[in-house]
Structures are given as structure tokens and as C-alpha cells.
């Protein structure tokens, strides 16, 4: 059994709630543009000069915009398992936020189980471990038709 503490691979980017994690984004107070990662400086909408933002939790569910996998070990700073295990990647479109967010797909799911337009839900899973902690990140979990989140 692994007794290392669980930590966010990138602090402040998502809630560490194991059951219903959310990405932490920002929303412009003036025009309603969302940001991930969160921006709290200047709004990037060219028609908006706002500098005030609210921190918000982004939708946990969206539709797969596209997907692929990584068959070769990426270079550093990626920390790979030895031996390297290929993983899938999905770009998921959030309806309310009208933005697409990339992420790895949960272990054990490959490209043949995905399709453009299919629903995916945000979950947390290990990205890598170091000597002191298990570093988790957000990943997308495709959901089969009829299955609940």
C-alpha cells in the first residue's frame, strides 16, 4: 500500500475533490469570458478592457472535440513510468464556457473507445510520483451511452 500524500501536480489548477473534481478557471466580471488556466490580469476579449475576474469552477462534463494517444515517451519535464505505458489524450469542448480543454484520458482507455461528440467527464488520476508524494492531475473519462457520470 502506498502511504504517500496526494498532491496536485499543479497547485491551484483544480480542486482536490476526489469524487467531483473541477478545473479552477476565471470568468471576466464584465464580459463573461472564461479562462483556463485562470487569468486575473487583463481580459483577452478585444472588445473588453476589464481587469476584474471571478475565480470559478469549470463544468466537469463536455463533448469530445477530438482525441489521440501518445505512443512514444515525451521528453522532460514529463515523468514517465518505466517501462513507458502509452496513454490517450482528449480535447473536450465545454458547452457553457465555449472552450476546448486538453488533457490525458484515464488509464486503460484508448482511442478505439472514443468518438468526436461523445461525452467525457473530468476525474483526477496520478500523473507521476516523486519521493514524497503522489502527484495527481485532471484527466478525461469518456462515458458510454446510457452510463451515468
Amino acid at each position, binding site marked *: 500500500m502506498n502511504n504517500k500524500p496526494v498532491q496536485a501536480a*499543479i497547485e491551484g489548477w483544480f480542486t482536490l475533490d476526489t469524487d467531483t473534481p473541477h478545473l479552477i478557471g476565471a470568468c471576466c466580471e464584465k*464580459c463573461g*469570458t472564461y479562462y483556463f488556466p485562470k487569468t486575473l490580469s487583463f481580459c483577452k476579449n478585444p472588445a473588453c478592457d476589464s481587469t476584474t475576474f471571478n475565480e470559478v469552477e469549470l463544468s466537469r462534463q463536455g463533448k469530445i472535440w*477530438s482525441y*489521440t494517444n501518445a505512443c512514444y515517451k515525451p521528453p522532460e*519535464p514529463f515523468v514517465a513510468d518505466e517501462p513507458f505505458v502509452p496513454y490517450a489524450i482528449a480535447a473536450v469542448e465545454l458547452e457553457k464556457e465555449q*472552450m476546448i*480543454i486538453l*488533457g490525458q484520458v484515464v488509464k486503460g482507455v484508448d482511442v478505439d473507445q472514443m468518438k468526436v461528440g461523445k461525452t467525457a467527464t473530468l476525474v483526477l488520476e496520478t500523473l507521476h510520483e516523486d519521493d514524497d508524494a503522489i502527484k495527481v492531475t485532471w484527466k478525461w473519462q469518456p462515458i458510454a451511452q446510457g452510463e451515468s457520470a
Partner: protein
Amino acid sequence: MSQDIAVLGVGMHPWGKWGRNFSEYGVYAAREALKDAGIPWQDVQFVSGAATMRCGYPGYVAGATIAQALGWQGAQVNTSYAACASGSQALAAARAKILAGECEVALVVGADTTPKGFLAPAKGFRPEDPDWLRFYLGITNPTYFALYARRRMDLYGDTEEDFGLVKIKNSENGFTNPNARYKKKFTMEEILNSAMVADPLRLLQICATSDGGAAMIVSSMEYAKRIGKANAVKVAAVSTVTPTFASAVVEMPDIATDSAAAAGVEAHSFRAALPKKAYEQAGIGPEDVSLAEVYDLSSALELDWYEDLMLCPRGEAAQMVREGATKLGGRLPVNTSGGLACFGEAVPAQAIAQVCELTWQLRGQAGERQIANAKVGITANQGLFGHGSSVILKK
């Protein structure tokens, strides 16, 4: 007033992997272009270089580095950096100076030497840098190309074989190109049996990085007339627009697109915006195009460009390649040079190399790659951080 400038000369150093100083390739290409133009180096009044980020300080000031290597002769000098569009940006600078009457004849040059192995980001824990962040999360360059390719398959019914047809076509085109690095005609079997890198893209469908150099001598139409080259091929447009908020497509190196949730904001395709501006500038439409050189970072991406250049309706590009429309001898040849598939990317030289190929085709000097009746050619490329370009050449 005409916004055209003349292409008096073009030249390239062949693409390869030798690891020599980048300025050697640049000087070689520049001398070839000067020879082709038939003018002495001393007559060049403006040197417009495209920078390389991988060769230290001399690379950041590539215009001056190459001018010095050719022999300082007092020309005005400039260096542009715009990722994959650096060469076009250097051409845009020369064009602006010529059209403003500040110089009559300019050298545009770009060259690169690429390091061995993976291009990895700088070390440290730096999540605020999107290029660092995506590698940490396991998202590499092929990821993005594969996402675009897979979307084509799911939305339009494109197949791995369609992407293979693009590779076969380009490998046939590059086979007789003396400047191409890879000269091998691939079969569908070889392509579909090469290692999967990022599903659905295999090793033989993703471009490599190369050493290489390309150069052009451009001038005012007045100067071209004076030296008896009034019939030179002309640059009719150089588009280097930025994207328009909000981005419709997740672009390297970002982990997310812009949000289009605000009122009055729509999602825009950056790739499609690049040629649109070029067509506007040139007063030429897609129906006038005889050939195109596009950035095939992957075989599938070439198909996206057909649609972004409006050579066919959205979703129908695979049909063009299946019919052989974009082959040599087809109704609209694309990447007659062999494209990145046969060259590998030499970043600051690549956009210039695309224009070199169009020049040879429009002049009827493309040898075994020559297409019939070439009158108008268009280039397109896209790089990191909102840089991209599209150039139109006409007879």
C-alpha cells in the same frame, strides 16, 4: 499604385542534416539568388533576414550575420522572427520598404541548423509557460496534428489511406527535386506499416526538422524594368495576420482554446484567416490559383489547408487527393516541391522555400516537377504563438 514587387532571383541550399553553421547555408542560398537575379551583391540596398532561435546570438540577428558573411557593404538591415512565418515576415519587411520607396532592391534570406534529438523546453518547474506545461502533462507536437487528423476522420470520413495518398504524392514530387532532403517514393504499405506516433498519425506522416537555407532577391517593378526584367514573377500579397479572438481550434502550445462565451464573440479559425487576407490583398480569388505550397507538418494537415485556401468546400479535401487533383498533372497541384514531407522543416527558411518553388513553377523552370500553365501560386503556413503567413505570386 501597383502593390506588386518583382522576384528577380531565388536560390536555395539543399535541405539535409549536416550541423554546419546556419550562415553557410544562408550565404550559399543568397549567392544562388543573386546569380539568378543577375545583379551584384553590392547593389542590394536592404537585407531582410529571418531569425533562427537555435543558433545563439548570430541567429537572433540573422540578417546582419548573413550580410557580414557576404561582406559588409553598407546595406540597411533587419531581422524578423515570427516562428514558422519568419521567412514571410522578412519578405513583408522587404516589400514594405520597396513599396515605401526606401529601397529598390532587397535580399530576403533565412537559414537554419537544427539540433539533434527532441526539442524540449527549458528546465525547472514553470507551469506559467504553456510550452513547459504541455510537456509536463504529456502533450507533444504530434498530439495537436493528430487531434486535427482524427477530427477529419470522425467528421468527414477521411481515412488513414487518404493521409497516405498525400504522403505518396509528396514523395513522388520531391523525388526529382535537387533541393529535397528525402528522395524516396513511398508505398501505401510502407506508410501504413510505419510506427504509430499519435493515433492516427504514423512516423512517415509527420515531418522532421532539417538544415537548409533559402533566399530571394526582390525589387520595385521600376528597377526590374530598368534591368530588363519587366516580365519577372511578382509578389502580389503577403499576409501575416494574427488570429481573431476567440480561437476555434486548440493550437500548439496551448492547453485550452479561448472561450467564446462572451456576447458578440465567435470562434474563428486562424488557418482560414491567413489566405483570406492574401486573396484580398492580391485581388485574386481561389478560382485563379494554379498551384499551392502548404505546410504539411503532417500529411493530414495538408488536407485542412486545401479547405482553408478555399480550393474545395470544407470536408471535401480527401476527395481531391483521391481524384489525383492535387498531383503533378492534376487540375490543382499542391506541394509540387515535395513539401515538408520531403524537406523536413528548416523554420526560418521554409516560408521562403515555398516562394522559391512557386517562382520556378511560374517561370517554367521547375524541371521534371513543372506543371502546365502556372499563372498564380499561393503559399500557406502556420506556426506557434499566433504566427502564420500566406504569400501570393503571379506572372
